[in-house]
């Protein structure tokens, strides 16, 4: 049955409707004068919607979304894996959901124990000496690490180091985080095998070098084979090594970034450790680091600390979910998760190699990047992605990493069944066949969704980012 295309809530709002009451009125209390005059602008036209209609509205809106509970969400680099229900149940427990960070410590003993255990577990898995949980999301963890790197250099009187080396395969957050801390970003080209080569950074190994940012495995899903050599060279030149931990789900039980040359790394609890993505957050971006950087951590309590990066403890609601996940699996389960993720990704790669062009042939771990080079009739990655929706699949990540033209980046994760993987491959094969036979079908796709291809140009040219009261009359 098709879902009606629910309009925004304001069409249902009406001042005459019943509104929600939290608690019963008390006449004696209501006689108290507040001593200030209340705003009289009608809150810009904000009116309530009846309870039944609110339920209908947000249920119908929700049905216009794709979600991992419905099926495969093969977004490379975003790592959409199953979000266990158990995590949600525990996080919603009032003992955890209603705790206030300013309560006296006795009331928070268990919360603090869970946070310290999570930090300890993340350190154990990653091989770093210490972990600070505070950053609010992966990009925020990156920024925190960049601040710490700056503080480390300054503490050594090394004020001239202003260059961050960033591979062309990096996430956009890497240069953005470096720039927000006043560093200059220098892009490094990946080699023909999709990995960084020491000779390509040689020219930058000087007194200006502050750090290098490396994603490992990188955004092509390839292990950076020269990682340790590059790290050594950077350290010799007086720089530090930041590892982007977005792909840590391919490392658990296999290698420990903290023991192969990285000085600091962020974790995405919402990628590797199954906390939900929630349509764009909240995330959680703890950072792991070695002793050299420990005094500079936001929570070190030492004078060298960069200071707090987020109010209170960070994203507690995400910590407890990740803690539950780690306890549910243990070391053996987490290693198996990595193995299964890599097996699933390589299975997809085998089935799709030849159907789509594989621009870099090197061995891949948890994800694989194809592109649109060989598609007939000027069919692009975007067309392919949109048509895949009609076959009942969310598209993979498109046009990223940016150094691969027309990239289609697929990451199935460990939680998909073989049946689901096969159905996805079959669908992609069918779309590629269609590209030759009926290209128009792809160029106008999707055809089965509540809206067809959206006019993003109009959205940007005539900006409409809020509803106004005039519309409902």
């Amino acid at each position, binding site marked *: 049955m098709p879902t009606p295309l629910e309009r925004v809530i304001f069409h249902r709002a009406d001042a005459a409707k019943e509104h929600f009451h939290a608690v019963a009125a008390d006449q004696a209390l209501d006689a108290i004068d507040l001593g200030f005059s209340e705003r009289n602008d009608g809150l810009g036209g904000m009116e309530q919607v009846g309870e039944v209609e609110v339920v209908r509205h947000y249920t119908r809106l929700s049905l216009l979304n794709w979600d991992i509970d419905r099926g495969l969400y093969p977004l490379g680099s975003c790592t959409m894996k199953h979000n266990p229900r158990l995590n949600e149940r525990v996080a919603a427990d009032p003992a955890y959901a209603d705790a206030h960070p300013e309560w006296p410590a006795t009331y928070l003993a268990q919360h603090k124990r869970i946070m310290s255990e999570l930090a300890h577990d993340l350190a154990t898995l990653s091989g770093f000496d210490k972990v600070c949980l505070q950053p609010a999301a992966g990009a925020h963890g990156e920024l925190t690490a960049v601040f710490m790197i700056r503080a480390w250099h300054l503490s050594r009187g090394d004020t001239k180091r202003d260059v961050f080396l960033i591979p062309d395969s990096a996430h956009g957050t890497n240069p953005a985080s470096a720039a927000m801390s006043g560093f200059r970003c220098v892009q490094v080209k990946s080699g023909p095998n999709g990995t960084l080569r020491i000779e390509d950074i040689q020219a930058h190994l000087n007194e200006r070098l502050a750090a290098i940012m490396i994603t490992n495995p990188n955004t092509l899903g390839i292990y950076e084979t020269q990682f340790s050599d590059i790290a050594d060279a950077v350290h010799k030149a007086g720089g530090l090594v930041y590892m982007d931990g977005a792909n840590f789900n391919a490392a658990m039980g296999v290698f420990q970034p903290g023991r192969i040359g990285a000085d600091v790394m962020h974790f995405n609890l919402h990628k590797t450790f199954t906390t939900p993505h929630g349509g764009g957050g909240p995330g959680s971006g703890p950072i792991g680091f070695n002793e050299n950087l420990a005094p500079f951590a936001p929570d070190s309590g030492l004078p060298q600390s960069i200071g707090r990066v987020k109010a209170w403890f960070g994203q507690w609601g995400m910590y407890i979910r990740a803690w539950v996940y780690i306890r549910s699996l243990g070391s053996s389960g987490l290693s198996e998760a990595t193995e299964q993720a890599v097996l699933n990704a390589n299975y997809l790669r*085998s089935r799709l190699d030849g159907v789509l062009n594989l621009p870099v042939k090197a061995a891949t771990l948890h994800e694989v990047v194809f592109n649109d080079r060989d598609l007939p009739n000027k069919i692009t990655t975007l067309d392919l992605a949109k048509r895949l929706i009609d076959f009942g699949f969310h598209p993979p990540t498109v046009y990223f990493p940016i150094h691969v033209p027309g990239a289609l980046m697929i990451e199935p994760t460990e939680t998909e069944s073989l049946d689901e993987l096969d159905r996805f491959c079959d669908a992609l094969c069918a779309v590629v066949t269609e590209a030759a036979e009926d290209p128009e079908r792809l160029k106008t796709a999707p055809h089965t969704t509540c809206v067809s291809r959206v006019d993003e140009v109009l959205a940007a040219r005539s900006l409409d980012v809020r509803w106004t009261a005039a519309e409902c009359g």
Partner: protein
Amino acid sequence: MRYSATTPNERQRMLDTIGVSSVADLFQSVPEAARTRSAASVLGPLPEGTLLAELEAGKVAPPRVALIGGGLYRHFIPATVDSLCARSEWVTSYTPYQPEVSQGTLRMYYEFQTYVSMLTGQELSNGGMYDGSTACVEAVLMAKRLRPKTNRVLVSAALNPQYLEVLRTYMRFQNVEVVLLPFDRSTGHTLINVDAQTQADAIAVLLQSPNTYGVIEDTAGIAPGAFRIVVVTEAQSLALLKPPPAEVVCGELQSLGIPVQLGGPTAGFFATRREFVRSMPGRLVGRTVDRHGTEAFCITLATREQFIRREKATSNICTSSGLMCLRSVVYTSLLGRKGLQEVARQSARAARAFLAALEEIGLKRAFSGNFFNEFVVDCSARPELARRLEAAGFLLGLPLEAHGLPHHRLVALTEIEYPKMAALIKEVKTHAHAS
């Protein structure tokens, strides 16, 4: 492994398709020297029942009464909010990069932007920030982008101390000087004690209202030409108090349907004028049409964001706080203007009734400026009272020793306390008279 969906036989078939004999072969690209050698392991696997029982055993009973705010406020959360926001389609979806299969989330963000614009009285809002503390920082960073030649920000000393710490961290790495504006020790209002030129030459003048001592501020004392940022940490106050005129109004939405959960995750908000939209941080959703002219929504002005503009982006933010934004939107829809105002009035009246009771037993309010639902009380007339109450599981506000205000407590009440006022007051009086 609990969350794996393949059998050993299937795994063998997959290996055969790939053409390798074992899973280990797939990791050959990882050099031997880099392999994990540590024997340290994490606890588990624990079955669900065992894990839950262990958690249960470690629980500590919460305080019976906690009149504690300080930037996070416990308001009543309707069952409808919890239930709707637990739907898989909200919880387990990703950032809406593919608009055709994300119209639900996109519409929700558009509603969020509208509600925040209405509450703040600003022209537009972004799709949310991590939390209030980082929203406050992003406001200053935006002001700095608009005024690149300035390097000093004037900040009220009555800004939430957590926010101030976060702001100081970021500003240090921007080489920006944070200059504190003191507050009046009798009224609790921020004192704008610098001349008009200094204000105009600063990146911004930043105030919180109600401020960290609960006192309602205004921006009338700020010189024309200054870039005004107003921070709001108790969003319920917006139902009754329109934020004072400012270039940016930002802060924390936790009060609108989001549990306190130890301070995170919550949702930050950021509202400003249309003219600044291209300098604004964070995600933005716009309304447009599809190929057939049907109303549709998509992420817009993405060229400001890190995944396109990289080192020149307005912010490095990628993931924000979508699910928490949803909670605030569902909450706001249920209550609307009238419901929010009812909650706000009940909170404000509970606070006033409680303050009156404290005054009856000889305590004094520290600042004379008007307040919303949170106030500072000087307990020196009854120095033992707070400790006695605490021993009985009753937290009489947040101690302010660290603010240089010994024996002072920051007391917050909401509509949760409103139906219990008689009992709370009786309990306080009983303890007071016993001392």
